[in-house]
């Protein structure tokens, strides 16, 4: 990756009901942006086929620095893991314009 700089990618799959709340959390914790899409799936809470209101899931991905990544994963674990269908993973990726994703907290 000659022209890219290391960055964290945090991905959260969860219930659509908390989309707005989660987006607000993520921005508050230092991310400068996020990308969301509608998904369906299955997990320990059973199938979520997304065909009607209460059954819809989203997948949110956030590019951010390691500190923000840690802040997000820690917060999300505490605030949502117990009561919501949720999966989270973090990957190492490379970005252009690294400043775009660094938290100047």
């Amino acid at each position, binding site marked *: 990756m000659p022209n890219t700089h290391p960055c964290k990618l945090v991905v959260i799959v969860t*219930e659509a*009901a*908390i989309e707005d*709340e989660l987006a607000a959390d993520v921005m508050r914790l230092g991310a400068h942006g996020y990308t969301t899409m*509608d998904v369906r799936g299955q997990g320990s809470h*059973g199938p979520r*086929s*997304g*065909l*009607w*209101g*209460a*059954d*819809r899931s989203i997948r949110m991905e956030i590019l951010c620095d390691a500190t923000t990544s840690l802040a997000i994963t820690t917060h999300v674990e505490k605030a949502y893991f117990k*009561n*919501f269908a949720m999966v989270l993973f973090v990957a190492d990726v490379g970005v252009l314009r690294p400043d775009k994703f660094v938290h100047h907290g």
Partner: protein
Amino acid sequence: MDAIPLFFLLGFLARLARSDLKIPAQLYEALSIYLLLAIGLKGGMELAQQDALRVLPQAVSVMALGVLIPLLAFPVLFKLGRLDRFNAASIAGHYGSVSVVTFAVGVNFLVARGQDYEAYMPLFLVLLEMPGIAVGILLARLGGDFRSIRWGTLAHEIFLGKSMVLLGGGLLVGWIAGPQGLEPLDPFFFTLFKGVLCLFLLEMGLVAASQVPALRTSGLFLALFAVIMPVVSALLGAALGALIGLSAGGALLLATLAASASYIAAPAAMRIAIPEANPGLSITAALVITFPFNILIGIPLYDRIVGLIYGS
């Protein structure tokens, strides 16, 4: 035979038989937006032709019914059913609120028979949507962290949730525009209504059948509750209807509203306000048992009850 319940059955059986038939998610949303708006508009239009002062006392007592039902349901669920406080409160809230589609099926029942009813009944539908949900949330927080309720978020969820805005907004638009203003909208919002309702019931059948596996874990108590509670509520609704001077048709609709449990507005609000509650339980009760019970068996039964009360 009336076609409406048949569409529900078609969806239900198709899904049980594992057909791949699906109603696309955005079509589902489009259908609900249409139904909520159309019912609101209809109610508002009729309200424009009423003396508001005459309706006011009726409206207040109907809202009181919406508060009473979850207060009755909660102890049954909590003590008798041994559900935890959160689940008991959440389920009580679902039964305090109402189901728009059940109401529409009730109206259709009357129309098919040519029986009259107070045309402003959709107003009561709008008024009954919220109090049950609010009471449910308060019940969940009664224990300790009562001050932890985020009142702002709660009020927002209740008054500005999608269904409330469409129902209430439709009501206001219909009220302001009146019958003349709405006339050019008739073909879209009123003539097509029943056809759209059929599509929605097809989808409800699919959804209900997809929740059937959850029945196993929800237990016998909840299944009984989901059949008995509606009948009790319908009795209260019919009695109140007689008390406040509704026609027999109006009393049947009020009984139907009381008997119905919300599976659109309440689940959305409860998921945010009582995240500790298991949404599977309330949805199984409201959608898999109470909803089909009401549209297949309940409404004719409540009609009998009203007949007894009104002595016809």
